[in-house]
């Protein structure tokens, strides 16, 4: 009897704790939308999203270049981080002695623990001058931001891809080897295909991280309001726009920054939903086999 009440007490307490976390999320969402949506209505959602004129002092808010900036930087980051991350995952699961894995995997995961301002600082001090010197342009650029973000998303992409590759039933691999395929043929023709949805989920979660990163991007992207014409041009992303101007903004300007936040929120939600759907589909398929 007594034990049962105690159990109930504890489970209720835990429920309350869990709920408070979700309430926090709900409050933040409600607040961002409450602050941001009215100005989108006032300016017009279309012109807010598609105009290139961001002149807060004149009451003109168009975030198109920043959307493009975020997209460009994220694609670049995924080309670099996705390739490297997937490569790491393949090596770690297929071609690496277990002892080395025990050392390598934690080291890659350690990358996630480095504060983003440190990445930004290294980018500014080493990467940016190098790009300016060898490739031209101002150095602060889509390329610099992509490279920094590529390294930053590496742990996310690698560890989720490793999990996906490990989840492939052993029989697939053994069957393929038994049919006479080499290690590499087995990897790219069988394992990567079987783990495809998990890898897609890894890349999309990495994208979420890249879209949301702020500090490092502010430091290396240059933050211009212009549409970039090449990877060597500087850009401003949605997150840097908020972080750069939040401290000073008042009135409509402040609300426009919240609206920028709404845009970002929607983009990240879409990415997360895609990642969830893809990985659920995988779970179902693996379950049915």
């Amino acid at each position: 009897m007594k034990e049962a009440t105690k159990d109930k007490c504890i489970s209720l307490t835990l429920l309350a704790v869990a709920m408070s976390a979700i309430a926090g999320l709900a409050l933040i969402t409600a607040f961002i939308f409450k602050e941001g949506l009215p100005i989108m209505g006032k300016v017009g959602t279309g012109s807010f999203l598609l105009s290139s004129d961001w002149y807060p002092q004149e009451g003109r808010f168009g975030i198109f270049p920043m959307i493009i900036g975020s997209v460009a930087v994220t694609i670049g980051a995924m080309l670099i981080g996705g390739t490297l991350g997937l490569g790491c995952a393949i090596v770690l699961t297929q071609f690496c002695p277990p002892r080395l894995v025990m050392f390598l995997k934690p080291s890659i995961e350690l990358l996630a623990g480095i504060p983003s301002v440190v990445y930004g600082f290294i980018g500014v001090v080493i990467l940016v001058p190098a790009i300016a010197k060898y490739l031209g342009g101002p150095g602060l650029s889509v390329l610099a931001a992509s490279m920094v973000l590529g390294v930053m998303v590496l742990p996310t992409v690698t560890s989720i891809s490793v999990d996906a590759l490990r989840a492939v039933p052993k029989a697939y691999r053994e069957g393929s080897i038994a049919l006479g395929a080499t290690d590499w043929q087995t990897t790219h023709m069988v394992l990567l295909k079987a783990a495809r949805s998990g890898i897609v989920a890894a890349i999309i979660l990495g994208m979420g991280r890249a879209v949301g990163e702020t500090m490092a991007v502010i430091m290396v992207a240059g933050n211009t309001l212009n549409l970039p014409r090449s990877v060597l041009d500087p850009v401003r992303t949605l997150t840097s726009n908020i972080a750069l101007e939040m401290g000073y903004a008042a009135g409509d300007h402040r609300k426009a920054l919240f609206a920028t936040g709404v845009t970002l929120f929607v983009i990240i939600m879409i990415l997360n939903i895609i990642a969830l759907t893809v990985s659920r589909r995988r779970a179902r398929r693996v379950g049915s086999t």
Partner: protein
Amino acid sequence: MKWIVGSFLAIAAAMLCFSFCAGRNNKGRAINCIGSTSIQPLAEMLSQEFDRQHPESIVEVQGGGSTAGLQAVAENIAEIGMCSRSLKDDEAGRFRGIPIALDGLAVVVHPDNPVSNLTKAQIRDIFEGRITNWKQVGGADATIWLITREEGSGTREAFVKLVMEAKDKPAAKAGQPASAPADKAGAAQAPTQHPNHRISRKAMTQESNGAVKELVKHNRGAIGYMSLGLVKDELKILAVDGVYPSLDAVTAKKYPLVRPFLYVVKSTPSQGAQAFIDFTLSAEGQHMLVKEGLISVR
């Protein structure tokens, strides 16, 4: 199990208690100064000296930007706001600005850049994006990379007012004592007025004087603007309209880009805040500011 929950609750209770006490203790004595990152290091220096002389009070200095400082004063979060530009008309009605020093706005380029003098009209054309190559203003054949500050920064607004929006005649805006010196200096020798001069979209935006400095230092084609007192020796400072911003030229108001540094208060500051303001304006406080490259208001 029980003791884990128990100790968890005890810690939570202790933290709650502590935060209440801490909050109460601070409320009585700390004077909050929030605002411009250009003034922040100066105010920190002043507050250290002030705290040493007045152990009973604490002055806490925070950055955030001129406009954020004004907002903090309006919302009673800070008693003193720090503002590195003159107050706008609507702000002048709500706040009282106390000039604490004058600062030159330095136009800076890479030390290897051969250009050493630009007119204000040239600077404006450069920042508007109409002049894009250094050879158009007598320099090497190289692209000009613009570096600006973020929207709302006091330094940016002072630059926009003094260079981009410079008018024919001395500004006719009266009733703004704090901005008077800057207005006169800014409007001298200004060419004809163009409406709606904006800083080019291509300008790279940085969020502090330090970041601007770092970029210009590493980019031979860069041009930026920053607080004169913070340039030190690492960058080349351009003469504007033929006047190099030496201490004498700025003091004599010959150099056209001068702005006020203000403390901003609501109406009557508390005794503690007033004491800190008085200290800043005292001979000693002003001497400290002059040593940092600023011009005394006394």
